[in-house]
């Protein structure tokens, strides 16, 4: 009996000795929540790749990756401190800062131009938004400022079109329930074309309308209290995005691990390619991926205010910071 106990004691000691091997300091836990379900949106890809390629671990971060359903709970969880970093559309970020007043800060502007556009079937005969006159234009939830801005740009008014609240199924376009359908550029156009539909697409940016896309978001609190973590985080994800840009196939393989077996790799590749394209601009050429300017943000805020989607009084300097980006 004593021999058995001795052997057990030695085994236990050996096991506990092995468990403690952490090299230098401890890893800092960070919770990241993607603003939607797993897919190849560029900010998500940056995180997936950074996790897979060890860019987080290199900098001492232990990042847990969560996904939200797109309902908005990611902002609630961020505000409550359960999540450290999340993603959000730039316009929504401005709106939520204002009402209900969540103290959000953009720490990296990945989508240098907006995610959304409008499409119609090619055989509708429409070629220009001025052709929207007398037709039905769909919106999801509430009509976005983009719609009104485009109408203004081509000299039409709200009364020239029929605005319809459509759902999230693009088949309403193909079945003829609506003439113009709102889409995410990286998503539905690909789906529609794969189903054999030829479409014509209009992007508000083509009409001089300021649009911005996805950002990485943290709270003012985290920005003030944990800047090193955010700096390490951003460095890792920017590295991840660079990797994806250079090795898209490999990046998609990593993404598919999160998307799951039901996912379509070709469609995910389309999303990645589209968003890589949208991540570059004059600003990023000068200062690197994710850089953002006061001018970009004020133009967007002005647009939203003009169409009543945002109350005046936003302090632009408080909305974003570049201090955590590699270029700073």
């Amino acid at each position, binding site marked *: 009996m004593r021999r058995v106990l001795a052997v057990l004691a030695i085994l236990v000691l050996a096991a506990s000795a092995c468990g403690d091997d952490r090299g230098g300091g401890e890893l800092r836990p960070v919770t990241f929540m993607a603003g939607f379900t797993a897919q190849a949106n560029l900010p998500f890809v940056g995180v997936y790749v950074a996790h897979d390629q060890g860019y987080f671990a290199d900098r001492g971060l232990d990042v847990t990756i969560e996904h939200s359903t797109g309902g*908005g709970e990611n902002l*609630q969880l961020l*505000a409550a401190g359960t999540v450290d970093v999340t993603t959000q559309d730039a316009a929504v970020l401005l709106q*939520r800062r204002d009402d209900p*007043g*969540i103290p959000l800060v953009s720490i990296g502007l990945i989508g240098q131009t907006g995610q959304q556009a409008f499409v119609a079937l090619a055989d509708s005969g429409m070629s220009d938004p001025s052709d929207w006159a007398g037709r039905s234009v769909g919106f999801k*939830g509430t009509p976005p400022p983009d719609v009104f801005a485009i109408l203004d740009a081509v000299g039409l008014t709200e009364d020239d079109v029929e605005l319809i609240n459509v*759902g999230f199924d693009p088949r*309403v376009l193909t079945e003829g329930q609506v003439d113009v359908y709102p889409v995410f550029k990286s998503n539905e156009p690909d789906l529609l074309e794969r189903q054999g539909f030829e479409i014509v697409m209009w992007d508000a940016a083509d009409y001089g309308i300021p649009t911005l896309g996805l950002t990485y978001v943290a709270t003012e609190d985290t920005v003030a209290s944990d800047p090193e973590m955010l700096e390490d985080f951003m460095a890792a994800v920017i590295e991840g995005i660079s990797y994806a840009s250079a090795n898209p196939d490999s990046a998609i393989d990593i993404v598919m691990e999160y998307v799951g077996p039901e996912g379509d790799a070709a469609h995910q590749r389309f999303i990645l390619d589209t968003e890589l394209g949208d991540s570059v601009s004059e600003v990023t050429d000068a200062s690197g991926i994710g850089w953002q300017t006061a001018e970009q943000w004020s133009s967007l805020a002005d647009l939203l205010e003009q169409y009543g989607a945002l109350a005046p009084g936003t302090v632009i300097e408080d909305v974003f910071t570049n201090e955590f980006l590699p270029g700073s």
Partner: protein
Amino acid sequence: MRRGPIVAALTVLGLVSLWEIVVRITNTPEYLVPAPSAIAEHLGSASGLLPAAAITLLEAVSGLLIGASVGLLLAIGITFWGHLEQAVMSIALLVKSTPVIAVAPILTIWMGFGYGPKVVVTALLTFFPVLINAIEGFRSVDRSIHDWARSLDASPSEIFMKIRWPSARPFLFAALKVAAPLAMIGAVVAEWMGASSGLGRHMWVAYANLDMPSLFAAVLVLTMLSAGVYRIVVEIEHRTIRWA
């Protein structure tokens, strides 16, 4: 002096006050958990809740009437032609097992963005409990009563109208008590699935804007409507079934 309602009211009041105090003391932001006072304020303001509630109520009641009628008719059919039962039940189970999420988008494509899909979804949800309970009810006739009726050579339709139908009424009311709140939920869920107006849409927009007071206010209105519809069913039951 009836104590029950007073105790209930005091309990609710106590819980609400506790909620208000906790939110204030912990300084919880409104976009996480709204205080009852914020919700009340939202209820008071002209926020479009009442028209939204009317729309959802209309969808729910229409769907309930259609669903209950279908369930009832099928049950009557099965009572007279027993060999229909298997076919009807197989289809009914299929319908019941299909999640609303799968059905709602297809309905929107067929029927457009208006009331149609919501009423259909609600009808699909409510017909099953009515069908099941009606079949049970029509069958639950006491054997002695049935023998007696046959001794008088009562026709099948006489037996149905004078014996089976009245006998089934408690079962039907039981089904309606389940189906009525279900219809409200069904209408709201259908509104989430497709484009729409109504309480479901109100809740969806509120959540998208992280406007928690608005969301909670809508939920409160929904709860009151459900309770109201349930109460109406109970009242009708009390007036029709006086013999139990």
